[in-house]
């Protein structure tokens, strides 16, 4: 008997991720441009009386803005970009159905140059150790899934009783 199949990354989520990446990139570009413009204005306004203060202010503005851009570029934009690439891979690869009791463990780690994942154990006729994208782990754990569909050892979709 086949139940209802739920995709971990449905079309709507893929679009939302792509939209978020575009918005974050735009926001970071605007922040960087604004900080640069502010620093250029400070340099242009620097005179004998205020040069020291303007220089310190420009260094502070460019440093803090740079830190924000670096942080968001690495930990927000790149993380989402990797999640999108991971999801695209899961949606195109051939899948294998694994039936059994699905348990999401607390074991979390990041695949190098890829997404953060959690270990999933499926106990049925045979025991399988799989991985699920960390952002979807909570949904899978709460779903009461009776089977999962895997691609390259990652959970791509799960099946719940209809």
């Amino acid at each position, binding site marked *: 008997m086949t139940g209802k199949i739920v995709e971990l990354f449905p079309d709507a989520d893929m679009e939302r991720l792509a939209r978020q990446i575009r918005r974050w990139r735009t926001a970071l570009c605007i922040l960087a441009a604004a900080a640069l413009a502010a620093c250029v204005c400070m*340099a242009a306004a*620097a005179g*004998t*009386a205020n040069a020291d203060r303007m*220089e310190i202010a420009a260094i502070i503005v460019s*440093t803090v803005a740079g*830190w924000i851009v*670096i942080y968001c570029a*690495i*930990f927000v934009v790149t993380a989402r970009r990797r999640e999108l690439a991971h999801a695209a891979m899961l949606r195109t690869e051939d899948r294998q159905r694994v039936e059994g009791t699905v348990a999401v463990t607390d074991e979390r780690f990041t695949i190098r140059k890829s997404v953060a994942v959690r270990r999933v154990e499926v106990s049925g006729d045979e025991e399988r150790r799989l991985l699920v994208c960390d952002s979807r782990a909570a949904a899978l754990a709460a779903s009461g899934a009776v089977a999962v569909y895997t691609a390259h050892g990652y959970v791509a979709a799960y099946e719940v009783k209809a």
Partner: protein
Amino acid sequence: MRALKNIFSQLHTFVLWLLASALFWGWIFTFVTDTSPEKKITVYCDVPQMRDTDLAVALEEDMPEGLRMIKVHSFGYVMFDVESIDKGDIFIIPVSDMEDCAEFLAPVEGEQGIKVYDAASGEGAAESYIQYADEDYYLFLGSGSAHIEDGKALAVARQLLALE
């Protein structure tokens, strides 16, 4: 907690950015707040303490035409190797250092130098900006100054002498 962990994992990137930012804007500000010797007057003061920025601002208030800025620096013996000191326009030197600095100094209006601080009376020029040591100080023009011929170095020197 995870944000903090993320920051520590990229600490080297954040530190590098701080250094790059400080170096880059330091270079830019050095560039925009300086100009060629032809467009500025540089004053070197061999004094224990001074408010160099305030003195420069005060001298810039009535700057001779054609000049863009006035730079004021304190200096000591370590600066004798610095090339730019050859092009200094005005020097304020204690009597004890006059012999050592002789190669940079040019007479002012035919005199060996103008006394700017008299240790005996405790009175001197621009005392609200310059803290003199307990000896006489003299003002000279720089022998390599680009503004001896056009009289701008002398004009600024007179302005300095008139400051309280």
